[in-house]
């Protein structure tokens, strides 16, 4: 927008032995202030350097035709700088009475003296110590919670009719049935890619049919359960954490407590039960889809499908299959428990739900990896 001449913000400073006069004119709004702010500060700091005494400081606002809080900030800044240079007060001339209360307000504030941030800065060691103590207390809470969930599960099993079965099935549908496409797709691709990558070097030895053994054993024992668990950790642990975290922020959990419900039984038990039983079922699908992915590669190499089937059926045992499925029960518990606990521990504030969701996914993936390692050692010792 073109500014008319009267509107253009201007500043000038006259110094005589009798008075220092700072003249502001034009439209002193945010844009006007931006135009003259630096100049004003420079004038006051530099042009008043060679004064012999301290003559009165006059701020002339006669030709100001608009003035808002941005202008008030400018006046407040002028006042602050003048004080710094030794003036006790500045006198204001030609003030339009419409703006007098704003100017009075601006003289009350000294922008150079800001309230300082109260939070003290911590040293590196203090910060690390703080983080470590947070980690320990988190770990303690986690263990307590696992105990609480286990206890709630046991007491619920004593009175199975008290379990909220409807909610359990709804959660099972959301975490299980709805996750089927993504679990299938990922397992199929993993089976396909792994078979393809393995077939190339094995073909050099004429051993490409053994790709079937590789896919069969890897999917059933390891990759099927692991891929399913990781997908569920990303999909369901985060959902549980967000759902329960939002309930916590909205005081819904407090509402449950004062109504006499046990929030752990009410919210967490259905999710843990659903997730525990749905993970092995999804894993069966994942195994199947992974093996189908491998089949595609074998077919492409010119073998009939029956050869592939016989190869797998002759090599993969029921123990392998059962070992994979047993792991999944544990993964299911871990995913649901981590998601729910992180949701339950959500702090206040808008970023809290995001933080607990992230932490639910990260923690459950770490726990899945750790428990997978433990299972491998145990199976090895048992000779499975």
């Amino acid at each position: 927008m073109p500014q008319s001449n009267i509107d253009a913000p201007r500043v000038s400073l006259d110094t005589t032995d009798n008075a220092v006069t700072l003249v502001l004119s034009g439209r002193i709004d945010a844009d006007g202030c931006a135009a003259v702010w630096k100049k004003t500060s420079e004038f006051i700091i530099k042009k008043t350097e060679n004064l012999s005494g301290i003559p009165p400081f006059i701020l002339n606002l006669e030709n100001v035709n608009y003035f808002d809080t941005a202008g008030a900030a400018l006046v407040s800044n002028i006042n602050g700088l003048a004080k710094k240079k030794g003036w006790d007060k500045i006198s204001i001339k030609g003030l339009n009475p419409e703006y007098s209360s704003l100017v009075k307000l601006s003289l009350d504030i000294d922008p150079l003296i800001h309230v300082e941030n109260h939070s003290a800065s911590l040293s590196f060691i203090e910060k690390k110590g703080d983080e470590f103590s947070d980690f320990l207390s988190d770990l303690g809470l986690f263990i307590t919670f696992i105990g609480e969930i286990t206890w709630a599960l046991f007491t619920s099993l004593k009175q199975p009719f008290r379990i909220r079965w409807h909610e359990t099935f709804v959660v099972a549908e959301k975490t299980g049935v709805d996750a089927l496409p993504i679990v299938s797709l990922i397992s199929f691709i993993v089976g396909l890619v792994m078979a393809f990558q393995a077939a190339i070097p094995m073909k050099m030895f004429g051993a490409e049919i053994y790709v079937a053994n590789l896919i069969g054993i890897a999917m059933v024992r390891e990759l099927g359960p692991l891929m399913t668990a990781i997908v569920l950790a990303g999909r369901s642990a985060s959902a549980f954490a967000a759902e329960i975290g939002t309930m916590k922020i909205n005081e819904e959990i407090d509402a449950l407590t004062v109504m006499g419900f046990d929030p752990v039984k009410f919210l967490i038990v259905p999710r843990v039960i659903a997730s525990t039983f749905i993970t092995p079922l999804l894993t069966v699908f994942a195994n199947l889809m992974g093996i189908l992915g491998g089949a595609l590669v074998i077919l492409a190499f010119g073998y009939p499908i029956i050869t592939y089937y016989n190869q797998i059926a002759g090599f993969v045992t029921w123990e392998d299959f059962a070992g994979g499925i047993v792991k999944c029960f544990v993964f299911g518990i871990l995913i649901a428990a981590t998601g729910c606990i992180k949701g339950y521990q959500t702090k206040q504030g808008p970023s809290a739900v995001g933080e607990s969701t992230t932490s639910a996914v990260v923690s459950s993936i770490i726990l899945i990896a750790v428990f997978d390692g433990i299972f491998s050692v145990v199976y090895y010792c048992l000779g499975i």
Partner: protein
Amino acid sequence: MKETIIKVENLYAGYNSKAIMEDLCFDVKKGEIFVILGGSGCGKSTVLKHMTGLVPPVSGKILINGTDMVTAEGEKRNRLLQTIGVAFQNGALFGSMTVLENIMLPLEEYTSLPKDAIKAIAMIKLKLVNMEDSAYLLPDELSGGMKKRAAIARAMALDPAILFLDEPSAGLDPLTSASLDSLIMNLAEVLNISFVIVTHELESILTIADNTIILEKKTKGIIARGKPKDLKADKSNPYAYKFFNRNEGKAGFDIRQ
């Protein structure tokens, strides 16, 4: 006669082309405190959302300083939005920023002022709402009344000509609510800001409002308009009379009968 700053013409308010309020016409003058009243769920907040450009109305015009909020687009709409400020019911302060940073944000985005100037302006806004001691607190650490005051300070960041407040005194104790009222009157006087307020607080309406309209669900329109004191005394309009003299109305099934 004060000049008109908002002119609402034949506004059909509602969502998804279904009007819940029909043919609303009213003016807001410069420096005036204008209150929109009405029973719960009658569409007051919807009208406010139309006026602030959040939701397009079914039809009609909302002229702010002569520019239609409904049809304005791009740069024009942006400029229009800079002339208004909105304080939401729960404050809607950004939780990851301190109160001061919340107020500095629009100034940093829309002006070329140096950082210390922005800080000084933000401090003045905080002083205006009497919250300069809470500048470095996070919104989580504020009480309900402080959140509302901080929200008003943020809404004022760019020195808007109009401030829209959605239920400013809901959930506040009478003392805090009264101090908020005097703050609003003070701002209207000192900064010559026009206020458009949606509220239920009778006490506060009678104290602050220069002008008011009452919306009613059944007739889908404005059932009364004028100065709140006149409406309170006027028995010829039963709905408005009941609204302002709430002891005389009865609602629900009387269990004693």
